[in-house]
Every structure is written in structure tokens, then in C-alpha cells.
């Protein structure tokens, strides 16, 4: 059976971020392109952070899902042709992050000059922006640590990059 790009993108919605299992790689913006030539499918991916240990898992998860759906003639490339940015996360993806308890990254248009952008992250528990940045580094490379002065909860944010 011949698949269209749209078919493959919707199949790949099954593949979730191994560390944040509520967001798909498509919504995360990690899948940067699908090319179809005859029966051969190429999936291009870009790393969120260059040192992210989850990238290899993501790549093998993509391969596995393609195989599962009978698309065995494929190539999965992980390269830097497209530079990943948190602005690539879809609206659906941002909602999923928030539901998971992670403040979604603000849209920045590549203009991050200082840590102010992280200073008043919106608390995913109570929506307050009366929050304090505790550290720009968190439990994974893509997260920062915050404290909400309104509800008193500690929370994490997906970093704008």
C-alpha cells in the first residue's frame, strides 16, 4: 500500500518523547520532513538538544512504528539541517506539556537575550505568573526549575530555545 506524507505523519503521532510520554515527536517539532520516492520513505529528524540521550531512542522508536505499519523500505535520518527550536512545538503539543505539569515554552522568535524570558513562567497548576525562576537547568536538558509564589508548588518548564 502506498502512503502519503500525511498518512506517515499521522502514524508518527504514535511516537512519544521517551522522557515526556504525552507529547508526540511530530508535535515536539522533532520530525522535520518526510520524503517519499517510489516505495522508499525518508524521515528526517533533528535533535532538541545536541547532548540529549533520548535522541537514539526516538530514532529507534520511529523505525519501529514504521516497520509495524508495514513501511519497511525506509531511512530515518537524524541531522542538523533544520535547527530545532521550541517555537516548533505545536499548539496541541503545548497543551499536552501543560497537562503533564510542564509549563510550555513561550514563543521567542530567536530573541532570547537574558533569563528574563524564564522569570515569570506560567504555573501549570494554578496559571499564576507570580513565579520565580530557581534554575535554568532541570532534570533533563530541556527543562528549567521554578517556584510558584501563588500556590506554593515547585514546577518545571520546557525551556525556550
Amino acid at each position, binding site marked *: 500500500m502506498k502512503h502519503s506524507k500525511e498518512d506517515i505523519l499521522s502514524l508518527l503521532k504514535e511516537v512519544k518523547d521517551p522522557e515526556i510520554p504525552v507529547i508526540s515527536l511530530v508535535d515536539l517539532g522533532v520530525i522535520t520532513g518526510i520524503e517519499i520516492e517510489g516505495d522508499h520513505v525518508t524521515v528526517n529528524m533533528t535533535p532538541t*538538544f545536541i547532548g540529549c540521550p533520548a535522541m537514539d531512542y526516538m530514532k529507534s522508536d520511529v523505525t519501529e512504528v514504521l516497520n509495524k505499519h508495514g513501511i519497511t523500505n525506509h531511512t530515518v535520518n537524524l541531522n542538523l539541517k533544520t*535547527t530545532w527550536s521550541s517555537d516548533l512545538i505545536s499548539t496541541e503539543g503545548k497543551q499536552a506539556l501543560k497537562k503533564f505539569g510542564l509549563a510550555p515554552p513561550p514563543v521567542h522568535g530567536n530573541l532570547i537575550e537574558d533569563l528574563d524570558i524564564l522569570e515569570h513562567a506560567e504555573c501549570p497548576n494554578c496559571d499564576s505568573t507570580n513565579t520565580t525562576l530557581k534554575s535554568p*537547568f532541570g532534570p533533563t536538558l530541556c527543562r528549567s526549575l521554578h517556584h510558584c509564589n501563588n500556590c506554593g508548588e515547585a514546577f518545571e518548564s520546557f525551556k525556550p530555545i
Partner: protein
Amino acid sequence: MTEEALKDLLYKIADDQLILGHRNSEWTGMGPLLEEDIAFSSMAQDKVGSSLAFYTLLHDLGEQEPDTVAFTRNAEQFHNCQFVELPIGEYNFSLIRHFLFDHAELIRFQMLAECPIEEVAQVAKKLKGEVKYHVMHANTWIKQLSNANEEAHTRMQESLNYALPYALGIFEPSQFENDFIEAGIYPGEKAIETKWKENISKILTEAGLTLPAWDSIEAVYGGRYGKHTEHLQPLLSEMTEVFNVDPTADW
């Protein structure tokens, strides 16, 4: 520009990343407070990850596998500046080194992001976004601690004075400096150094720290061409311990 020149450039960047990444990781479990423990561990992970990106570019140019290159060379085969191999010391020194080094890295990657060699530009473009967080983290702590009590201020100033000659060693000119400039790869070490001085001066002034006159500081060169302190070999021995027990181990 020759391939030899390009390798010279990529090796020094890759080795700086790997060695400082290893040093940063020595704070894991030892940080003065939890957030800083996590910060240095994250920066270690970033730096080791970026060293892999550069070793991969070198592998594409015909050098050996990244693991082989990272784990089987002796100290004199490393091209890192001496600055990154110095022991982590007290926290004030590690912070000052992080501040001075990452400011230089950010400028280097911003310049290389415009490099006509596409593969190099792609890596640099990616890394400049990541290193920005390292720089912002460093700026915050440098200002906070230097403006804290007298002991903190004194410690920061002493570490700065100790670190500066080594920090200038980051910009040790390559034997291919003119080739890079002529080929438009990047504007060269002197150009990074000039911009770096400007950027760090601004933050150091806000921090209330004193910069000695630049011409009174003698840069520590040699690291780029295999001359290292006695601290590098023990670091390598520790870093390669698992690899040496079983080079085929996967973890």
C-alpha cells in the same frame, strides 16, 4: 583551505568540550546546592554531547570513530587549552572558569554559524542556542556572588586573577590562522578575543570585580599543540577507566 587546517580547528573545539565537560561532571553530587549541582551536571552533558558532534565531523573527514578518538589518546595528543583541564578547585574557580570559557564559546559558535562549510555551520548554529543558557547562568552567579559579602567578593576576585592568564590561552593562535580568515571560515582567534574582552568587561563591571590591565597578563599557550599541565593525564586516566577495562562495553 586544507583539510589539515579544518581538522586542527575541529580538534581544538572538540577537545575543549570533552575535557571541560568531564570537569563539570565532577560537580555531580558535590554541588554547593541542589540547583547548582544540576546546572553543572547539565552543562557537562551539553558539553560532552557537543564534543561528540565535533568528533563526528572529524570522523566524516576520515579520522577514527568518536569513541576511539575520545578514549585512546594520551595527554600530548589533546588540543584543548590548558584552562579547561585545571582541577575544579573551589566553587568560585569553577564558576569563573565557566563564565570566561562559555563567553568565548558563544562568540566562537556565533561566528562559526556563518561558516561556508555547511556541516560546521549547522553544528555551530545549534550550539550557540544551547551555550546561551550557559552564559546566562554564569552571568547571574558572577553578579550575585561578587556583590554578596566581602569573603565572596574576595574569592571571586582571586579566582578571576588566577584564571585570566589561562583564559587568554583559549585564543592561542592556530598555525592556520590566516587560512581560516582568508577562506572566511571565521574571523580568527584574535577577533574572538577582542569581542570576548568587551563582553566579559561589561558583566565584570556590573559584578564590581576589577580587571587587571590586559597587557599585564601573560597568556598561557601550548595546550593547542599538546603542551599540558600535570592535571590532564590523571583526568584522562579516570575518564577512560571503563573503556580500558572493556572497550566493547555498551552503556
